[in-house]
Structure formats: structure tokens, C-alpha cells
């Protein structure tokens, strides 16, 4: 569904990604792992059209979307869910969700998806009239995922949904991501939380210094000693791992 070939990009004159290849099959969950500053978020920005692609190709459904304007990419059903801190704090929960549905005009469909989001995240329904700035970290993360769903995506790209959240909340959010994928939405998950991401995803990439270092099925990667050694980070669900 998504093919990234030899992607090169960066900010200003500084090159961040130096030839990244990633492939995501329709209906699957794929994770991209790496520590801080390895280029994970840059990859998502390039895919969403927020920064220009210097070289290489991005194909979505076989068509090139490299250097398209972000709103055009959204219109094709490729939606990025930003990090939790990037909700609109001065808007209510429901207004945030409605921004997600901006490109749509099917009132009934929007209504139905709104109910669906509230079904995934009941906490949001309780707080639908609250300003999103008053939500807890976990709730805001749920909100931005819900906002992505409101765009009726065919593929969701999530940027570190576990960042800085308590393990209990991470579990809840990952479970919901699994549920979303089961409903037919393809998922690209960018994470630092290696253990949880590999438990959720079917296939994983590990990037470092702007290149893919290792890739493979999630089961294989979680068994890989070098992965365990070098790329831990983020909050940890298991204290065994923490002290290992």
C-alpha cells in the first residue's frame, strides 16, 4: 500500500534521512523503531508532505505522493496522527475531532465515525465539551488518534503514541490501535517503546542515523540481541526489561 524508496530529506541544509526504504502492505501493522533524533519523525513529515522530499520516491497505492501538498495527501486517505501534545488545546474535544473530519461532507458518515471514536475511547465522550487542554496525557493521545480516525483514513501513521504515558495507558492505546487495524485500517507505527511496538506490529524497521539498520518480522526482531542492547527507550511496560 505504501512504498518508500531511497528517501532522502532533511531540514534546511541538514540531511536527516539518507536513503530510507520502507514498505507497508495493506491491512498490516508495521513499526518503525529508533531512538531520539534518528529520523523517525522526519520520515513521517516527509510522508505527510510537511517537508520536501529531496530525492527518492513515495508511492501510495502505486501513485507518487512525494512533494504533494499535505491536504492533498490527506484527501487520498493517508493520515498522520501527531504526538499527543499536538492537539488543539483551546478547542473542545469534539471540535478537535471535527477538525479531523474537515475534508468530508457526508454528515451521516461523520456522525457514525464520531460514535465509533467514542466507542473506542469512552473517556472522550465524557469530556466532549471540555477544552482539550484540560485532558490528561493519555486522553490527549486518544484524542489525536480519534481525530485521525475522523478523516476516514485508509492508512494511519502514528507518531510515538506511547510517549511519556503510564504503562497502563499505553496498553489501552495500543489495544485500541490493534482494534483499529482489525477494522481494516493499515497502520504505520513509529515508536521508541520497542517491546510494545514489536508485540503489536507484524513487521518492523529499525532506523539509525537516517538509514534502515535492521528490518524483519516483529518476532525475529524482538529476539535479536543487538536490538535489545541498543535500542531501548521510552516508558517501559515490564520491570524485568527495565532492570535487565
Amino acid at each position, binding site marked *: 500500500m505504501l512504498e518508500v524508496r531511497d528517501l532522502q530529506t532533511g531540514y534546511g541544509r541538514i540531511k536527516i534521512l539518507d536513503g530510507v526504504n520502507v514498505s507497508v502492505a495493506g491491512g498490516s501493522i508495521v513499526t518503525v523503531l529508533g531512538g531520539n*533524533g534518528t529520523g523517525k519523525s522526519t520520515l513521517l513529515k516527509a510522508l505527510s508532505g510537511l517537508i520536501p522530499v529531496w530525492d527518492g520516491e513515495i508511492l501510495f497505492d502505486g501513485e507518487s505522493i512525494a512533494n504533494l501538498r499535505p491536504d492533498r495527501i490527506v484527501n487520498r486517505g493517508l493520515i498522520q496522527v501527531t504526538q499527543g501534545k499536538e492537539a488543539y488545546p483551546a478547542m473542545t474535544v469534539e471540535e478537535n475531532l471535527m477538525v479531523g473530519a474537515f475534508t468530508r461532507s457526508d454528515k451521516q458518515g461523520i456522525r457514525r465515525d464520531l460514535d465509533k471514536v467514542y466507542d473506542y475511547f469512552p473517556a472522550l465522550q465524557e469530556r466532549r465539551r471540555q477544552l482539550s487542554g484540560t485532558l490528561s*496525557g493519555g486522553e490527549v493521545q486518544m484524542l489525536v488518534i480519534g481525530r485521525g480516525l475522523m478523516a476516514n483514513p485508509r492508512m494511519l501513521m502514528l507518531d510515538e503514541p506511547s510517549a*511519556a504515558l503510564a504503562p497502563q495507558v499505553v496498553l489501552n492505546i495500543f*489495544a485500541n490501535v490493534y482494534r483499529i487495524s482489525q477494522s481494516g485500517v493499515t497502520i504505520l507505527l513509529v515508536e521508541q517503546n520497542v517491546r510494545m511496538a514489536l508485540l503489536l506490529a507484524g513487521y518492523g524497521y529499525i532506523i539509525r542515523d537516517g538509514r534502515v539498520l535492521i528490518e524483519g518480522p516483529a518476532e525475529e526482531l524482538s529476539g535479536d540481541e543487538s536490538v535489545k542492547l541498543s535500542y531501548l527507550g521510552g*516508558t*517501559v511496560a*515490564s520491570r524485568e526489561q527495565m532492570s535487565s
Partner: protein
Amino acid sequence: MALLETRMLSKSFGGLRAIQQLEMDVEEGSIHGLIGPNGSGKSTFFNLVTGVYKTDPGSVVRFAGEDITNFEAHEIGRRGVARTFQLLRLFSEMTVLQNLLVGYHTHTKYAAAAPIFRPRSVVRADQEASESMFELLSIIGLAEFADMPAGELSGGQRRLLSLGRAMAMRPKLLMLDEPAAGLSPTNVDVLMGIVLDLKKRYGLTLLIVEHILKVVMDTCDRVTVLDHGQKIGEGAPHEVKDDHAVVEAYLGKEMSDEEVRAAFAKAAR
């Protein structure tokens, strides 16, 4: 004896109560960890102690027995409190040595006009400064890069430099804001080794905010856990680790891979 004490420390932003009546003692010569989920008030605590934010009425911050509540940041710095930043905030155009000297000169007392006239005392002070800065550079392993612009250092080296710059202020209390974030485990070990070395050599007291629990558990003598601006647990690392409230709010229950997978499957049904 407690080097840093807070009593009834509170801070709100509009309606948001970032720190609520926090009472905390950092013992002199200890390594004190401060942990908690994001938004629990750790950074606010740092900013209150270092004078970046003004506290709410009723709060008291004491350093080495002196009430320093709401002192200006530079006065607090002069008394011996230094910190590092999550975002390093180095002067990237300056050389490594110059970065350290900036920290050092905030500590020295001679008048601003003096460097222009350069009396002998100043020249001597400058020599001393360079010498002690080189000593510091060699401890943090950056001596060979002294004349390189800070912007050209690698990520790990920059973090070391930010540590060195804080040390250049000759602090009694060094506050580290997520020193290990984004470092590989090997580099974390190197960094913490240097921190412990510095502590021993200069008789530091350390206050560390860190997300990577291993760091906290391995190095700290005492840990305070914050949640929503309140202290929910405090004690030796192993005590905190088993504290029920801390587990609920922050650490989470232990789960095996199978249990996690089962939780996913249950959600999808």
C-alpha cells in the same frame, strides 16, 4: 543535613496546578531521583528551584539553610545551584572551552568593566579559569575538542558539554534534566560514570529527573515520585519500586508478552 528543602511548594498556571504543596528534602552529598509521568510537575519543580518561575504564595525553598524563595535566577546560581536542560541550549557558535567559560564567569565576581582594563588580578583569574576548565574538560572527556565549535560535536558529546557547562559554575547542587534521554545504553553508562566521578571529585549533591528507570534505580540513594504535582511516593529505589501507588500511577503492573497479546485480542473483540 538537607541541602535543598522545599516546604508547601506550589505553583499553578491559570487553573492548572502544576505543583501542589510539595515537601521535599535533598540530603547533602546524596543522589536524589525525581520521577513521574509527563506533566507530573518535574520540570516545573526544576524551574521553581532555579528561579525561572515564581512560586505561589506560601511556598518556601531553602538552600543550605538559607531561604531563597523567589530569588532571581542568577542569585540562586551564584549560591551554588546549577542545572542542565533537556534541550541542551549550548552556544553552538562558541568553542567548547568558551561554552564552559560562560558558565564559569557567571560564577566569578569581578566587575563587568574589569576585562577591558585587565589588571593583574584579572589576568591571573583568567589563567586560573582556563586551567580549571581544562581539568573539567578532561574529566568529561572533551579536552581534545576544546577549540572546536560546540555545534560540531556529536549528540553525546554535546550532552557531556552541557553537563560540563553546569559544572563550570562550581555548583553545590547539580540538577540534571533527563540526562540519558535519547542515549544508547552504552552511552548512558558512560555519562553516569562521569557524573559519579564529578560528584566524588567536587563533593556534589545531585538531583536527577529521568524517564529511564534503570538509571534512577541504579544510581539514586533516594527517589521521589510525582504525579499531578503531588508526591505519591518517596524512599529508597527498591521501596518505591514496590509501592502500590507508584505502580498504579506510573510503573504499571508487570505483564508478560502473552498477557499483552491477550489484552490486544480482547480489545478487538
